[in-house]
């Protein structure tokens, strides 16, 4: 494992540097909101330290956390596809340090440098696939007696 965020772990150094010229360091205090469900997905983050909770708004209840993300993980992929709206909300569970990337500029860079764009999109697709798979596994409710019944 390297110290790089997982998204960029295996990206060639030149492409990684190019992408990082667009990044800003941005810190969030504990309990602050990165974004709300339905808001404009105009950026994404790579977590340097701290934990972020992704949540869903359920009327009459506190936001329901569906997943947490930690160091080296990526927060947000709704910026890739129109209409660029967040599917979930995101909140800092404690102090969170990130690199923040502006979505429109990243998409433009991907169009201008299609090699970089292809590599980046492959990695984003892998991330989305991984989260889909994780969600499916959780649907099985594996830890109940029925879920873990031996064959």
């Amino acid at each position, binding site marked *: 494992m390297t110290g790089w965020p997982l998204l960029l772990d295996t990206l060639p150094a030149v492409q990684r540097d190019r992408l990082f010229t667009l990044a800003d360091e941005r810190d969030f205090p504990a309990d602050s909101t990165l974004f709300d469900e339905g808001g404009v997905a105009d950026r994404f983050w790579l977590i340097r330290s701290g934990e972020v909770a992704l949540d869903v708004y359920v009327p009459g209840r*506190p936001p329901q*956390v569906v997943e947490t993300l*930690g160091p080296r993980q990526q927060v947000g992929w709704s910026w890739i596809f129109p209409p660029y709206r967040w599917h979930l909300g995101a909140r800092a569970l404690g102090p969170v340090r990130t690199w923040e990337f502006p979505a429109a500029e990243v998409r433009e860079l991907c169009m201008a440098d299609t090699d970089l764009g292809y590599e980046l999109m492959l990695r984003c697709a892998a991330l989305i696939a991984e989260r889909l798979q994780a969600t499916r596994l959780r649907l099985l409710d594996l830890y109940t007696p029925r879920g*873990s019944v031996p*064959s």
Partner: protein
Amino acid sequence: MTTVPLPYRVTAVAAENADCTSLEVMPVGRALPAFTPGRFAMMYAFGVGEVPISVSAIRDGHRLVHTVRAVGAVTGALCRLGAGDAVGLRGPYGIGWDLDGATGSDVLVVAGGIGLAPLRPAVRHVLAHPGHYGRLHVLIGARTPEDLLYRAELDHWRRASAQVEVAVDRPGPGWRGGVGVVTSLLDRVDVRPDRTTALVCGPEVMIRHTGRALLARGLPAHRVQVSLERNMRCGTGHCGHCQLGPLLLCRDGPVVGYDRTRSLLAIREL
């Protein structure tokens, strides 16, 4: 090794969560041979029946702890026992975690649900032998925060230098820890594939996915040890109930290298 249950007495009972109870037992007379982490006993609830239960702690002398989840008649009866009650035990059975083979390497423990029970003595063994092993990472998946086993002990492990990460499927109000599948916790660990031994126990689907995720991170399959469950009757390799392909898991397992089980676990109805 005896194939006739020896009488043991329950010396302490601890409710771990809504359906799991830890029973500490002591021999009434003759004791069974020493257990090692990952091995199991056939526990006999008098008048009800007998089930395989892993050892979840091995205390000084011949005191054993078993953590039992009440899922049916026998485990239900075991969980209803109180201090002073009698229980029958035979064993130790099976092959446990290969902790000698892990000497000198980092140890990565991945546990799902009640799967933490057979892994607990392995964690304790590693912590009790500083210098023998590299870094210790313990990744735990549970259904809800309330289902988490050995909560207080996890803090001891952290204080004793283990990295302990927990993810639950369903967080309740007030839970500030991780939410997600246990495999997502692998991203939090600095896995050194060439010097890590992984010990994995949990529901079989979780074992398959964890095995794949570990291989994707570069761990060789033979450095991944998995503990598998099948229905067991004799525990001694004679009745065939616990067969998984060419393996009889009571004799050749329950801990088996992922290199031997990976293809077997991919076959349905084996």
